[in-house]
Structure formats: C-alpha cells, structure tokens
C-alpha cells in the first residue's frame, strides 16, 4: 500500500478549520453509483466520532432506471451535529453530484453559498443530454451562487485504482469511495472505520478491497493536495446526549431487533410471515438472519397467505407477526378481521409508502392511518401504535406485542419509509432491564377450573381479554372462527342481542387499552396559544419546528402521538388547554379528521403529500402564520 493514513501524512499542509454546530450533506448519483453505500459509511464514521446523526436515503423504485437520467437518481442525505438533532435537515451545506442528472435533481436543495462537488468527467455531451441540459452548467454562470468544485473523479480514480489490476469498468465502480474520501477530507473525518469496513466486506476479494481503499484515500489526498476549498470544517462530538454506549440503527432493523426482543421477553419465539414489498422487506431480511434466536420466517405466496399463516401461528401460541406496506394491508384486511373476531394476538406491521395503489413505493407518506383504523368490514376495532423515529421502532414494537397479548387482539404497528430507511444513533439497551411480557396459557384444568367441559373460550378477564388456550393442551379443545360468537361459550350465534353485545364488547376491550398506556406528554408549555399534534415519522421535524418557534418567542407546544387507537386518556384535556391546534401530516388530514370527530376540536391542518418528509422551515412558517391569525 503506497498511501499512509491521513493523520500521519508527511505532506499535510496546515489546514484552516472552521467550527460548525451542524452540517447537512448529500451524496447524489445514479442508482448504480453506490450513493447509499457511501452515505451509510459517512453516517457511521460521524456517529462513531460522536456526532449526533440523522439520515434520509432517497432512491427510485426502479432497480436500474436508465443510467444518467433524472429518473435514476439516488441520494443519501446526512445531518451530523455537535448537539442533539431530530431530522436529516432542510437545506444542504454540501452536495456531491456524480452526474448532470444528479445535479439537476438535487441543486434546489443546496443552500446559496453551499459547496457543490461535481464529477466533471461525467458532464459530456451524452450525460448532459440525458439530463436535459443544452449546455453544461459547469461552463456558464448558472452555478455562480455556489462554491463549485469541479473534480475529474473518473480520471483521478482510474489513475489511483489502476495499479490494483482491475478492469476500467471495475475501477469506475470505486468512484463513490473517491467522492467519500473528498468529503472525509472536507469534514476532517477519520478513514479508519471505512477502511475496516472495506477489509471486512471484501475479505475474500483482495483486489477489490485494495482498489476501494485506494479510491478512498486518493479522494482524501486529492482534497488535501489540490486544496480544493480554502477552509475545512470541524463538527465537535455532541455533548447534550444521554451517556451510554451507542450504535447506529435504521427503523426496519430496529423493528426486527425489537421483535426478537419482545418475543424473548414473552418467553416465546417469533414467527414472521411476509410477502416481499417495499419498503418493508428489510424486516424479513433482517429476521431471516436471526434464526439462532429461534426466529421462524416464512415468505408466503402472497400478502393474504402471509397474514393467514400469522393468524394460524397465533392460534398455535407463537409471537405471530406479518409485515407489509399499504397495498399489502389492503389484501390482509379480511384476515385481520378474522383475528378481531377470534381475538388472537397478532402483530401487523405497516411500513407506509406513497399511495394510492402502487403509488410511490420508495417514498414516504402517512396516508394509511384511516385505512388501518377503518379499512375492514363490520365494526372491527384494532389498536394502532406508531413509531416516531427509527430507534423508537425497537420500543414501540415491544409495546405492540404487550398490548396484543395482554388484550388478546391484533395490533397494527405503523412505520413509514422515512423512519424505516433512516438511520440514527441508538443507545444500546441492556436486555435484562427490559420489562417482561406476561403470557398465560391455560394448561391445567384442575388448577384453574376452566378446563374440560367447563372451558369457555370467550370467558373474559377484567381487561375483557379471553384465554389464550393453545392446541396441544389437553382439556381445552375448542373451536373458533369468523362467525359471530356467543358470549362466554364462543359457540356460533346468530342471536341479534348477542351480536350487539359482542360488537360492544370488542370495542370496549380496545377502548380499555387506554388504561394501560402512558398519558399524552406535551413538549413545551403545558397550555398556551398553539399546540401541534403529530404522529409517526414526522416527530423530528415537528419537534424541531416547535422548538424553533419557541426560540422566536411564540407560545407553541407539541404533542406527538404514539398511540392512535385508542388515544391516550388525557388527550381531550390536552387539546382544550390551547387556543389553537395545528395537525401537520404527510396526508390530506387523517389524524385531523379523527381528532375533530372524537373531541369536537376546531383543529387546523397542514399537509404535504410529495413523498417527502416535512422541512423544518416550512413547519415554522406555518406556525408563524397561524400565530398571526
């Protein structure tokens, strides 16, 4: 290896460093350019360094859209900071554009005066034409408002990697690491974590490992030697973060870890049945790796079979889970209704994406709330829980299982593409300190008096939950099904009065869950002018916007809901303590409709349906507007 580590480079010229509190960068290139990979590396390196980080991967639904076209652009945004942050940020401080299409698609996000690093080798006639540029934006004054840095990355990278014996094509595949090297130089990051990763990942293909390392280091040294920019930036480790051991985690990964954890806390194994669907498939992938935790994964023939198998497994006594996105929920509705009628504990995970129909498979949206709330035939109440940020998935999926088992009910867990794919630091918990989930299968007819002929599958406890007697247990043989049940006995019943009673009972059971969940917490003043009410993946943006509005002297509070059915018991009171209520959502007003319907509150709504998360600035502007009304 010809290069040495950057810190020890004898040629190092003293750099001018400027301190920054936080920085937002984005890698953008073709979907085959490896932008997601280097984005992940930059995130990891920054997190290990001690910054708080928040990421936003944004990629097309097509695996390989026509190369070089705007449709195929893939981006990865990282916000890293010396203080606690909750969003991947609004405007970019730096943008890396690997081709003209990436520039066209992403330039609008770069703040004026921001750093724009382009691969000038990929601005040839053809590249420009594919991105609908008539003349190269690098040759006119259209980019004058930015600090434009033209780097012939393809050439430089080939020179650097050339000696490793790879073909030109293979060498070009390392360009993403060259770009990463430049950003590591610019933000004074260590190369070590990425070098370690390359060594591990390509342990068996030494020439590829070598080439990627050369590309990375060459990018770094090129920044240094060519003095690409007059100053570099340093972002100190965050200091306002709870002490502990941290790692990086993404939402879907947190769901998988949370499921395995929840099952162990219940003394059971996970049965996960799923059909591949973006953006939920990574949960299946992650769980399929964890078989030594007793996890049984089942890739079913379709969405209906997946939920069906989970219902069967729930009857059989497993921690039964199915995961999907909105289109899959549509297909699973009937079987969820069966789990409502048979009162079996079942987790249904919906990682929401843009809809309706196939919609925007890789983009985020929170427009499935009313679908999961009401999208079944008959009076079919199902508890709904929503995670607020990636690592919150770990906690809330455990909470979902607790509710499912304690109340013998299917539970819907809502995530979305934004938190599923977004990464953030996660304070690693100690399994031994997590709360156990109590499970009680009737086993012994003599001791609990419910067995034999006396066993009543629909006799309820004080929470209105019925017993979870599982096949294989002698003396508790019983039949369940989708036909209406007679109260207590569980026999089929068409009696009108019984039907109404059972409908009311199922509703009362779900309503009663409010007694077992925390009261709604309000961030900011506990009463005052404006309350923002949000749910799901918008937590970071709304929370940050409220804090900024308060910093501007406004009386703004924030209530973020993790429980959407039932709502926390005190929510009605919370709403009444504020003069105005604003409900920002990435839909046309679904929580807004529920709140108005349930609490008769004249809430205002603020909505965005672009497949993109809220920007903090647009929320602050909306709060200021409402404050003036």
């Amino acid at each position, binding site marked *: 290896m010809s290069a040495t580590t950057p810190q020890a480079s004898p040629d190092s010229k003293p750099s001018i460093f400027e301190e920054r509190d936080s920085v937002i960068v984005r890698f953008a290139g073709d979907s085959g350019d490896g932008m997601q990979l280097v984005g992940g590396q930059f995130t990891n390196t920054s997190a290990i360094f001690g910054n708080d980080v928040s990421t936003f991967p944004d990629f097309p639904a097509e695996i390989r859209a026509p190369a070089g076209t705007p449709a195929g652009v893939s981006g990865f945004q990282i916000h890293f900071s010396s203080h606690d942050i909750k969003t991947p940020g609004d405007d970019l401080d730096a943008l890396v554009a690997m081709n003209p299409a990436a520039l066209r698609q992403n330039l609008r996000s770069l703040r004026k005066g921001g750093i724009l690093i382009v691969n000038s080798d990929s601005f040839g006639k053809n590249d420009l034409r594919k991105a609908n540029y008539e003349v190269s934006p690098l040759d006119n004054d259209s980019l004058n408002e930015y600090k434009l840095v033209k780097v012939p990355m393809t050439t430089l990278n080939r020179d650097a990697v050339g000696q490793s014996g790879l073909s030109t094509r293979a060498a070009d595949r390392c360009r993403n690491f060259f770009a990463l090297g430049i950003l590591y130089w610019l933000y004074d990051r260590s190369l070590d974590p990425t070098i370690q990763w390359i060594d591990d990942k390509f342990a068996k293909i030494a020439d590829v490992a070598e080439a990627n390392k050369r590309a990375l280091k060459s990018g770094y040294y090129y920044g240094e030697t060519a003095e690409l920019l007059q100053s570099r930036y340093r972002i100190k480790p965050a200091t306002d973060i709870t002490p502990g051991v941290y790692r990086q985690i993404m939402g879907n990964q947190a769901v998988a870890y949370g499921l395995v954890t929840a099952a162990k806390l219940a003394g059971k194994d996970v*049965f996960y049945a799923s059909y591949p669907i973006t953006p939920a498939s990574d949960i299946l992938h992650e769980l399929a790796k964890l078989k030594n935790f007793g996890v049984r994964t089942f890739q079913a*023939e379709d969405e209906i079979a997946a939920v069906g198998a989970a219902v069967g497994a729930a009857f059989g006594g497993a921690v039964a889970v199915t995961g999907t996105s909105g289109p899959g929920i549509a297909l699973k509705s009937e079987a969820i209704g*069966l789990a409502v009628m048979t009162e079996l504990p079942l987790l249904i995970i919906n990682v929401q994406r843009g809809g309706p129909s196939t919609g925007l498979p890789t983009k985020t949206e929170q427009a499935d709330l009313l679908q999961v709330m009401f999208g079944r035939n008959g009076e079919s109440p199902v508890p709904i829980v929503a995670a607020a940020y990636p690592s919150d998935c770990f906690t809330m999926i455990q909470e979902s299982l607790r509710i499912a088992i304690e109340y013998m009910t299917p539970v819907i867990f809502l995530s979305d593409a934004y938190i599923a794919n977004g990464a953030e630091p996660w304070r690693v918990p100690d399994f031994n300190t997590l709360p156990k989930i109590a499970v009680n299968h009737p086993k012994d007819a003599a001791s609990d008096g419910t067995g034999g002929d006396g066993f009543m599958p629909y006799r309820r406890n004080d929470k209105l939950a019925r017993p979870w007697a599982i096949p294989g247990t002698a003396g508790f*043989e019983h039949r369940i099904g*989708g036909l209406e049940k007679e109260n207590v006995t569980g026999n089929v019943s068409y009696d009108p009065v019984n039907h109404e009673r059972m409908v009311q009972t199922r509703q009362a059971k779900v309503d009663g869950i409010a007694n077992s969940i925390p009261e709604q917490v309000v961030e900011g003043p506990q009463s005052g002018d404006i309350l923002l009410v949000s749910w799901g993946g918008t937590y970071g943006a709304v929370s940050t916007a409220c804090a900024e509005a308060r910093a501007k002297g406004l009386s703004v509070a924030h209530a973020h809901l993790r429980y959407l059915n039932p709502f926390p018991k005190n929510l009605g009171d919370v709403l009444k303590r504020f003069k105005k209520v604003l409900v920002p959502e990435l839909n046309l007003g679904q929580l807004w409709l529920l709140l108005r319907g349930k609490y008769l509150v004249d809430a205002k709504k603020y909505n965005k349906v672009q497949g993109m998360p809220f920007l903090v600035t647009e929320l602050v502007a909306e709060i200021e507007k409402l404050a003036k009304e």
Partner: protein
Amino acid sequence: MSTNGSLNVLTAKDFANDLDVRWCPGCGDYSILAQMKKVLPEIGISKEKIVFVSGIGCSSRFPYYLSTYGFHTIHGRAPAIATGLKLANPDLSVWVITGDGDGLSIGGNHLMHAIRRNVNLNIILFNNRIYGLTKGQYSPTSRVGHKTKSTPYGSLDRPISPLTLAVAAEATFVARTADRNVDHMQQVLKRAAMHKGVSFVEVYQDCVVFNKGAFDYSVDKGVRDETTVHLEHGKPLIFGAKRDKGIRLRGHEPEVVNLSEVKEDDLLFHDEKCPDTVLAHILSRMSQPGLPEPMGVLRDIEEPAYEEQVIGQVNDTIARYGAGDLNKLYMSADTWTVK
C-alpha cells in the same frame, strides 16, 4: 376428557360434540364426518393434538362438529392458516377441510403452495361440483354446460380436476374417495393421516339440494364397477363387475381393453411410489365418459416435510452459532461511548 393415557379406548363418540349439525338432510358431508370420527381414534394421536382448519362453505363447517381443536377461518385461506399453525407447532396433526369453491377457486393459490411446499397437512377437499352455501352457483369443477342459477344457459368454463392440480403441484400423497363408499373412505383417510408431508384427498360428495346425484354414475352400486377403477399399488388396472376390463397405455393415452383379448401383463400397472408425476397425472385425467375414474391412492412418495426443514434450519443455526444473545446482537455494529 381424553388424554394420552386413555388413547386406546377412544371411540368415534369421543370426537363428537353437543352442537347440532346443520347440513341439509342427506348431505354427503354427514358421511364424511362419520367416517372421520371413526378414523380419528385409530391414528394414534391424542385428541388435543388434532386441529381441523377450514375455510368457508358447507364443508368448512366441519370443525364445529368435532370435539378436537378447530378453526373455521375465511374463504380459501385455510391452507395458509394451517401452514402457519403447523410451523408454530409441528407436533399437531393438522387437517384442512375445504371444498371445490373454497379450495380451487378463491383459495387455489394457497392450495397449490401448501402442496408444493409439502407441509405435513391432511387436506380433504369435498368436491360437490357446485356452490352450496351461496345456494347453487357453478363451481370450478362443474361440468361444461351445467345449468345453475348463475349459468341459466349452461356453464362455459372448462372444469379443473382437483387431482390433476394436486399432481401438478407435486403433492406427495394424492387420493380420491367418495362419500357413499364408507369403508374405502376410512382406508383413504387413515392413509392420508399416516403420510408424512402433504396429503391431498378428493372426496366425491353429493349436494342433495343443488347438485343431486352428480356422482351417481360413479358411486351407485349398479354402475360403479364399470365407471371407476380401484387403484392398488403394484397391481394392474382392472375393473368391471366381472373384472373383465383393463387399462392399457397406448403411447401416453390410457385406453380400455377387454381382458379376453389382452394379457394382464400388458396392462397399466399402478405404482404409487413412482417419483415422477407422469403416471399420477395420466390417472388424474381419466374420467367419464370414456374411461373409469380412479379411486384410491394415486401417489404416495416420501419427501421431507416443510415444517421439519424450517425447524431444522433454526436448530442447525443454533448448533452452528450458539443460541442468540440479544445483548450481543444489539452491539453487533460499530459502537461508541458517550460519557
């Protein structure tokens, strides 16, 4: 109450419960229920380990009339639900009760996939060639030209053969029996129960209200010897009241031959253990008019059961990597400490 200890004294009565059976008087389902109650005490599995899972339709009310565990699910999905149950608890003996509409129409996909995975389920398909519970529409097994409420001018749909579908999905056990052929049905059900892996049994079942007599041609004592052929492993296909006719293969086509003209050795010999599906496929296509319809076991081969493999993979992984440690899993990435 039945327990393991009293297994040997169980009788059909032990599998009855006190609910009124609500099929139409004379329905073929009664016979299937009766034979099932006779067979269950004889398969060596204690009652609490037996689960009946059904979909929707007349046949799917079956679990309510037994005293085992039962799950009356939703239309067409019983094979998927049973698969999940079996994966959660492989020790159970899981029976799927379905019909020609439930199993072949709305649930065709699940049936096919449960079969091709070789989940250790006993799938019993009651074929009455009609939709009974919805009061008389044609089904995927109704004959062309069949006049029903939804086909007043005759059905145009080409019917599917349940056996052909099962063979195409490479079911490891495929059989056919008929509601009125009680001894035969008991034998077939028993063999289905004993088979490891998926067992698929088609039962010709008379719907006395909407398709009465649909199977008279194959079950009436006066004609059935001429219209059906009983399959016996290793034996030639011979039928007829006087056992004077046989089946011979002409190329890929079965044909009826007269034993006075053809030697037994030249007949088609049944081989239910044949790993290839060609023979079973040919048998599954034999139908009236023209050819006798096969009764009995078309195919019975050994392949690993799906749920055993799923559990096996879990156990292998534990043996290889050790039982998972959650605290280690949480730390299975680059970590840093904030002080």
